[in-house]
């Protein structure tokens, strides 16, 4: 493989560049006033609940440092939970507690912490350590998603999630994110998780990428990652499509997890989703975004209808025909 690709080769494949994503899509279709609906996880949850979209339940919001004294009271009835900043990005500042034993809390990444350390971490969150721009923030204590044993073979100590890019309400590309040892149990590609492309039409996984390199097996478990069928795929597509109405953002990334009892839950929204999804799918976003624009989805359409549109537009088998049509 050569050192770099030529711009023409990339353009031919419809690969979306950062500059183009920022200028042509994000600036044009994402209105600044809607950003908080994705950036503020608390707001996202409230909007989702009002719209009937399932999300991990919120136990408590911690808003002031004064409340920290009562943190043990808040956590008294909980054995497992997640503490996260309302304005965090990329999994920063998220503490996942799996169980509590003898006054110590066992975290998903293997560490054991005391209540004091939890209070310290929450204080950091409140002081804005993890928020963009260092603004004071709120801490959310929420339900810990129990991961579906379906993904047991291809994940390492964490909950995999599905990231779906939604443009004008139409899901255009999807990727399964698998935590690894390197990523400390986080489903974050920048930290070393594996991204697996999912065929939009069928919900079956295809190939994977880890740190911008193609992979076929999970680096820690060694199991193959292709050919896995994501359950309730149509439901997932609908949830993703409805995030458009929820947020008013024309270009967004929806993160959805599977809970073993509750099914798909919408975890969070991202107003500036990254471009690695293209590597995971080995497909260009720009091409698909262009197809959506040409298909001119109607503003009042039902999310379910838009999900169907996506399946039709991006059907892998029909691709050559669709390309010829366009």
């Amino acid at each position: 493989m050569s050192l770099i690709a030529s711009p023409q080769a990339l353009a031919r494949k419809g690969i979306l560049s950062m500059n183009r994503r920022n200028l042509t899509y994000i600036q044009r279709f994402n209105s600044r006033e809607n950003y908080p609906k994705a950036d503020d996880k608390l707001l996202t949850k409230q909007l989702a609940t009002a719209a009937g979209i399932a999300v991990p339940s919120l136990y408590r919001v911690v808003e002031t440092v004064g409340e920290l004294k009562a943190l043990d009271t808040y956590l008294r009835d909980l054995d497992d939970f997640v503490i996260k900043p309302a304005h965090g990005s990329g999994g920063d500042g998220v503490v996942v507690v799996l169980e509590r034993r003898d006054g110590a809390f066992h975290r998903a990444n293997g560490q054991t912490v005391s209540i004091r350390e939890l209070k310290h971490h929450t204080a950091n969150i409140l002081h804005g350590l993890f928020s963009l721009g260092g603004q004071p923030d709120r801490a959310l204590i929420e339900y810990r998603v129990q991961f579906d044993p379906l993904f047991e073979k291809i994940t390492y100590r964490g909950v995999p999630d599905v990231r779906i890019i939604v443009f004008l309400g139409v899901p255009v590309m999807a990727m399964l994110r698998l935590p690894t040892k390197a990523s400390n149990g986080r489903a974050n590609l920048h930290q070393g998780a594996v991204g697996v492309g999912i065929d939009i039409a069928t919900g079956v996984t295809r190939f994977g990428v880890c740190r911008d390199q193609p992979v076929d097996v999970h680096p820690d478990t060694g199991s193959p990652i292709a050919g896995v069928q994501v359950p309730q795929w149509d439901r997932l597509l609908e949830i993703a499509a409805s995030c458009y109405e929820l947020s008013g953002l024309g270009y967004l990334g929806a993160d959805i997890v599977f809970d073993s009892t509750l099914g798909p839950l919408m975890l969070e929204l991202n107003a500036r989703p990254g471009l690695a999804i293209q590597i995971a799918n080995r497909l260009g976003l720009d091409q698909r975004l262009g197809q959506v624009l040409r298909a001119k989805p109607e503003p009042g359409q039902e999310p379910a209808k838009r999900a169907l549109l996506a399946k039709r537009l991006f059907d892998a088998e029909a691709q050559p025909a669709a390309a010829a049509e366009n």
Partner: protein
Amino acid sequence: MRSRVTVKQPLSIIVPVAILLMSGIGLFYYRAVKLGVPLVPLTAPQSWKIGATVVFDTSGSSSSVSLVIPKTTARMQIVNERFASDGFSVATVEEGGLRRAAWYKRQAQGEQRLYYEAVVRRDDDVTRTRKPRLRTFELSDVETRAGRRLIRDLSANLPKGASLADALATEIREGESASRSTLFGSSKESERRVAELLENLFLLAKLPARMHRGLSLSESDRGVGLHYFVEVYEGDRWRVFDVSTGTWGSPGSYVRWGNGAGKLISGRGIRNESLVLSVTPFEEEGFQSHLPEHASLSPVLSLPLESQAVLRVLMIIPFAALLVVFLRCFVGFQTFGTFMPILIALAFRETHLVNGVLLFSTIVACALLARRYFARLQLLLVPRLAATLTVVIIIIVGISVVTHAYDIERGLSVALFPMVILTMVVERMSLLWEEVGAIAAVKQGVASLLVAALAYSVFVSPEIQYLAFVFPESLLVILALCILTGRYTGYRLSELRRFRALAVSRP
């Protein structure tokens, strides 16, 4: 709850870009071509600060002091003259080919000090094309005969291509021949006498020559004295012989002071007068001296020198910013903060590049360690930030003291803002380190430094400094380029690498 999606149509960039480019390039063309403002700085003329301090006693009655001061010549410009004294009135007088400063005070008591200071600017572009006139020498018959003999002897022994003037100068200054003794006769071998003899001998040998007294510019000191110089025209150019040091130099190697004879200070009502001279090389701010006279058509150049010094830095910042834009949008560098590298580069101006990078790296590394320790202490965020900032300052003070103790010059010209920048960098780097890992943190740190180093090279480039300062319309062009780049939707160099696997077709 439905949210509204609005699609905003951008304004066209054609109009602002066209206006900016046309006015920027148009003004540039007009000034560069029509008005002839040079595109590169002329060779920097050199400048020196010269000074004279006159100390004397007074007795209570009126005192007047007159000091001979230099005159502007074609090659050496005397500017920015300043006279300082306590209660004396001062005026400059020109008579008999000499220029003087005349101080006067009606009632002066006790010891008095008068100061004279000026800037000497040498214009190396001055060339005299006419062959100078040969004046007649002034020697007695005895001297003439001895002189001719000396010249004959020296010429006979002169290797081909060697300079007669050299030989004569050496012989007269320190030789031991009989002819030399005859020439000096019974007079003292003072510098002045040597210079006079040399002048006339050169003339005798049909070499145009002139004797002068002045301040040598190759010395840099307080308490220097006036030397005697003999200028001689040999082999199609002028050369200058410094009688005191016995060295040869070019015509610009000294500034004439006085006319070669007579005392420099004279006065009434003064006693025990003494004169101390000083000369130091001087770096002039502002580009006034780099331009031919008529070209000062930039409004910026007519500002006072202090303002020019500040603007000189400010006006380059847009160039550096454009560089950052290029590195970000076309190459794909990820740095800590968009313009932090520019601020770091501004700090590098004080410390220079290698020292600056070393300093920056050392401070950040130490501060990261400190921050690690503070993290384990489990402190609130803001006090922890303040603690890190204080540690940064302590490190800087430590480095200052150490470099001073070991006489390492470049130590620290400490500008205020890098402290805050450094603290922010340390905090962001620690976070990145903890959350993502050492590799990503160091990568961004190195990228930030690299961008800062490149921005630094923009700041110190004399061509860009000149361009920004003498052609401020270039800023309009920069603005246009920024706007144009704002619409660039192509790939970054880093993406060409990142997505290279995708360019190859796979089933």
